[in-house]
C-alpha cells in the first residue's frame, strides 16, 4: 500500500509542474484538506495532498454564476466536497440539490477524485465542471 502511494506521488508531482506552466491568472486555493487520507499516514498524506488541479466552474441553466470561477483544488479531493463547497459559496439551502457535470454529459459519483477526472477529461490544463440546480443532462 505504501509503495503505491509513493508512485502516485511521483506521478502527481510531474503533473504539478505541468500545471504551473499553463495557468494564466493565479487561481484561488481551497483550504480544505481531505481528512480521510490524513488519518492514514501523516507524512505521505501531506505530500500527496499538496498537488493541486485547476478547475473551472461554469453555471448552467438557472444556477447563479460564481464570482470566482477558477479554483485550484487538491487532486485527491472527492468531487463531492467540491459540490458542498459550491453550495456554501452560493449560499444555497442545504436541502437544495446541486448537480455537477463533466463534459456536459455525465454526473460523476461524489467519491470520484478530481485527479481521475482531470486525467480523463481535463483540457488545457484544467478541468471544466458545469453545475446547476436541476438535472441538465439526465
Amino acid at each position: 500500500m505504501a509503495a503505491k502511494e509513493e508512485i502516485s506521488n511521483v506521478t502527481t508531482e510531474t503533473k504539478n509542474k505541468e500545471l504551473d506552466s499553463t495557468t494564466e491568472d493565479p487561481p484561488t486555493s481551497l483550504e480544505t484538506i481531505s481528512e480521510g487520507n490524513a488519518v492514514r499516514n501523516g507524512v505521505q498524506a501531506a505530500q500527496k495532498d499538496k498537488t493541486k488541479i485547476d478547475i473551472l466552474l461554469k453555471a448552467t441553466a438557472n444556477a447563479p454564476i460564481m464570482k470566482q470561477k477558477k479554483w485550484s483544488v487538491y487532486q485527491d479531493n472527492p468531487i463531492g466536497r467540491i459540490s458542498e463547497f459550491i453550495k456554501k459559496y452560493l449560499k444555497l439551502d442545504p436541502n437544495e440539490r446541486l448537480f455537477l457535470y463533466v463534459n456536459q454529459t455525465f454526473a460523476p459519483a461524489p467519491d470520484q477524485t478530481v485527479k481521475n477526472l482531470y486525467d480523463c477529461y481535463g483540457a488545457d490544463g484544467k478541468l471544466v465542471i458545469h453545475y446547476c440546480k436541476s438535472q441538465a443532462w439526465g
Partner: protein
Amino acid sequence: MANDREVLREIWDGKIPVCFTLNSEEICDLQGPDPFYLMVPRLSYFPLCTEKVRKHFIRHIQSDKQEHEMWLEFNGIPLKWHYPIGVLLDIYFNDIQLPWNIVVHFDKFPENVLMHCQNKEVVEAHFLSCIKEADVLKHRGQIVSSMQKKDHTQLWNGIMNDKFDQFWSVNGRLMETSTEEGFKYIPFRCYTNEDKYIQKLVKPMNEEGQRKTLKHLLNEVFPDQENVTVRTHGIVPPLETPLQWMSEHLSYPDNFLHLIVITS
C-alpha cells in the same frame, strides 16, 4: 462487438450467497430475527436486492427507527452501495468466506462515508451516469446520446430484473466499434484500496497499431511496479487478454472494467 456470448453468459450468471444479520445492538425483541440468506447477482447493486432483507428485519427494530435508511456493513466497514456487488466482493476477497456475512444497520447512518440512497431511482441515475461516462471514453459520448430514453430504461430494467437478453439488446450498441481500432479509450477503474481507484486514458491500440493487452494497461497505470495482477469478477484474467476484448466482455453493466489490484 461483444460476440462471445458464452463468456457474457457466464459473467452474467455470477451470483453469490450472502447471509444478512441484523446489528445486535438494534434488536428490539426478545427473540432476535433469524439471519436472512439470499443469492445476490454480482453485476447488480445492493439496493436493488435488499428489499426482502429490509422487510424481514424491520419488525425487529425499534418502531421509530423503521423509517431510517438501511445500510450494510462488513467487518466494521460500511459498504458503498454505488459499487457493483462484484466489485465489493473483489475488494474484500481476502476476508470473505462464503456465504458472505453482512450486518444490516438501520441506525447511525455514516454520513461522511456513505451516500444516501433513498430509492431505486437514485441507483438508476448513478448507473446511467456511469454508462454515459464510459461512452464518453469509448465513443466521445455519441452512441449514448443517440439513444432514446426508452433504451436507457431498457438497460436499467435488464439489470433490475436480471434479464440478460433485454440488457444486451441495447448494450450491444454500446460495445460497437466503428473503426478497426476499437474504442477511443478503454473505460476502466483500478482499485488500489477500498476507497481509492485510478482512472486514466488508455487506448486499446498502441501507436504501431497493435492491440494492447491487460499487461500494457497495468504498465501504464502502474509504471513503477512490476508483476501487478488484478482480479475482476472473482477471477484473475490472464495478462495477455486483449484490452478491447476485455472491455467488451468483462465490463460490468455500467460499461466499466473494475479491476482490483491484488495485494499479496
